[in-house]
């Protein structure tokens, strides 16, 4: 056989996408490592400072506070969202009439912009003119501070006997947790629904013959069979929750007060934005970005490993 002549064709087809992705994706990703090791201003590189930015991070209370806030966000949003979307999807899978209608209703928050819904929810949480306190008023409950309340939810629930460190996320952060779950629920539900519809009906029929009840079927068939979907949803929700920014920017601000009250809603990506663009600490912000990157990367790898172990 004659050795084929080098064919440049495929590379020409690839070229436009390749150029854009290399210049505007790969280069910045590599550059973010470099920037974090230099004293970098907008005009260019300054002195090499090694790990100084990372050392500074270790003793920066604002950084740790924002890590804690992000942790709260993830630990509340991810399990609740997964649980609720699986339940919704199960109910949706059980009906035929109106299924498309409900699917649409649940999905609408997902296509609307985070900016617009943040504004809507900010007004819903407004202490004087919001819907939440209006509804609480109807059932005779005292109005709450919502986005202005810095006390932890466990403290509010169980009284001041709960020490501050065990107080949990502030009510302000919890308000944002509710919005974040609501916003992403439709997407997760649709993905779960697609997963459920891939389970062969014969499995359930066989189980019925063996006399399995509804709960047994759910735990022995549904849950194991949708586990690939669960891992996908788990990973996507974790990654997107880590990147929460718009809600914070719009809801607990404006300006210097953003991330309040008392910094209890300042999440890591908002802190990155504040350092990078309000304070123009580009290299410090890059160090924060890389911490975010490695956390997300290790979570992804961890979940992958877990997935391989539990895969059916």
């Amino acid at each position, binding site marked *: 056989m004659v050795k084929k002549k080098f064919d440049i064709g495929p590379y020409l087809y690839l070229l436009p996408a390749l150029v854009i992705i290399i210049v505007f994706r790969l280069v*910045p990703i590599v550059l973010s490592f470099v920037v974090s090791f230099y004293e970098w201003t907008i005009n260019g590189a300054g002195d090499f400072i090694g790990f100084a930015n990372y050392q500074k991070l270790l003793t920066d209370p604002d950084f740790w506070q924002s890590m804690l806030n992000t942790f709260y966000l993830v630990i509340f949003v991810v399990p609740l969202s997964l649980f609720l979307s699986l339940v919704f999807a199960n109910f949706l899978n059980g009906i035929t009439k109106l299924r498309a209608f409900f699917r649409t209703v649940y999905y609408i928050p997902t296509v609307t912009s985070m900016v617009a819904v943040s504004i809507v929810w900010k007004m819903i949480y407004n202490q004087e003119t919001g819907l939440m306190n209006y509804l609480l008023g109807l059932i005779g409950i005292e109005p709450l501070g919502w986005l202005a309340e810095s006390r932890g939810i466990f403290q509010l629930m169980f009284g001041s006997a709960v020490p501050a460190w065990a107080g949990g996320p502030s009510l302000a952060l919890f308000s944002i947790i509710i919005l974040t779950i609501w916003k992403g629920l439709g997407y997760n539900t649709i993905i779960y629904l697609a997963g459920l519809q891939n389970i062969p009906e014969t499995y359930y029929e066989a189980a019925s013959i063996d006399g399995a009840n509804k709960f047994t079927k759910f735990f022995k068939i549904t849950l194991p069979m949708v586990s690939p979907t669960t891992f996908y949803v788990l990973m996507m929700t974790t990654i997107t929750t880590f990147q929460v920014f718009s809600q914070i920017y719009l809801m607990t601000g404006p300006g210097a007060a953003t991330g309040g009250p008392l910094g209890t809603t300042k999440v890591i990506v908002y802190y990155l934005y504040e350092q990078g663009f309000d304070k123009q600490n580009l290299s410090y912000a890059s160090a924060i970005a890389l911490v975010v990157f490695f956390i997300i990367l290790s979570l992804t790898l961890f979940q992958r490993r877990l997935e391989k172990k539990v895969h059916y």
Partner: protein
Amino acid sequence: MQDKKIFTYIILGFCGLFMIMPFAWMLATSVKSQLEINKGNNGFLPYVEVDYLDLAGDGELLRCKILKPAPGDSLWINIFDENDVIIASYLKVQASKVTHKKSIKLFFSNFAVAWEQVPFGRYFLNTVFVSGISVLGVIITGSLAAYAFARMRFKGKEFIFYLFISMMMVPQPVYLIPSYILLHHLGWLNTYYALIVPWLANIFTIFLLRQQFKSLPQELFDAAAIDGCSRFGALWRIVLPLSKGVIATAAIFAFIGSWNSFMWPLVMTDSEELRVLQVGLSYFSDSASSQTALLMAASTFSILPLVLLFLIAQKQIMASFVSSGLKG
């Protein structure tokens, strides 16, 4: 069996209500009068409360407006006729003779006021321009690259493909700062280039189209080659026409992503002429922070185009979730 279904529907309906409640409240509030909102009308009904005077105590009501309280449990009021003309002013009456009635009144003018207060028209044009060009670019670069990945053999294919896929997982905040530095050195900060050029290719689109292009039967391409169809001809005449559905889905996703993107345009531009809708809306929420009704009106018309697009294209979008190979 039937009873259980009803139970399911009730739960689904209840959850559905929770999901659309914020939008229902947004719509209701967008047509309320700000005065009523501040007075405590914070539910779902856009009513106004009107004062009436029952002068003779016989149930015949005259419309009036309370001006201020007067000593001795009475009030200063103005009285109006049917045409809103004052027929008596600064009348002192007993407070017990004044009653209030609620009537539904919709202030559609809020939409016009919000639209005029900041240049939302400009914001919309900017967004349509930026999103339109980006989507066009994404589909062109995506089709070409996906065609190469799906139907050609070349050195480094696997490597480039996995490079792309691994970069897809890198979240935007990670490359935001260096992108800002890069765009600064290109002199593109605060220009349309910064909003468009970096988004002219999209890895997810390439991935989606590659799946589709791979699924086309090889016989089609063999037949085309026999008929003397060039490589580009096969893409243009065979692949693209057969992939309309997936291309439309990819375009819709890219459009939604572009339309809703916020952090990137917020950081990369700061002049008012370049503001896209999301950035403009966020500035508006600052400047009109106490104007609940106007904010809800602005949110409504910002959300509307995408919700309409989604309602039109939802079958396509939903079908793509089932078939996009998320089975793992």
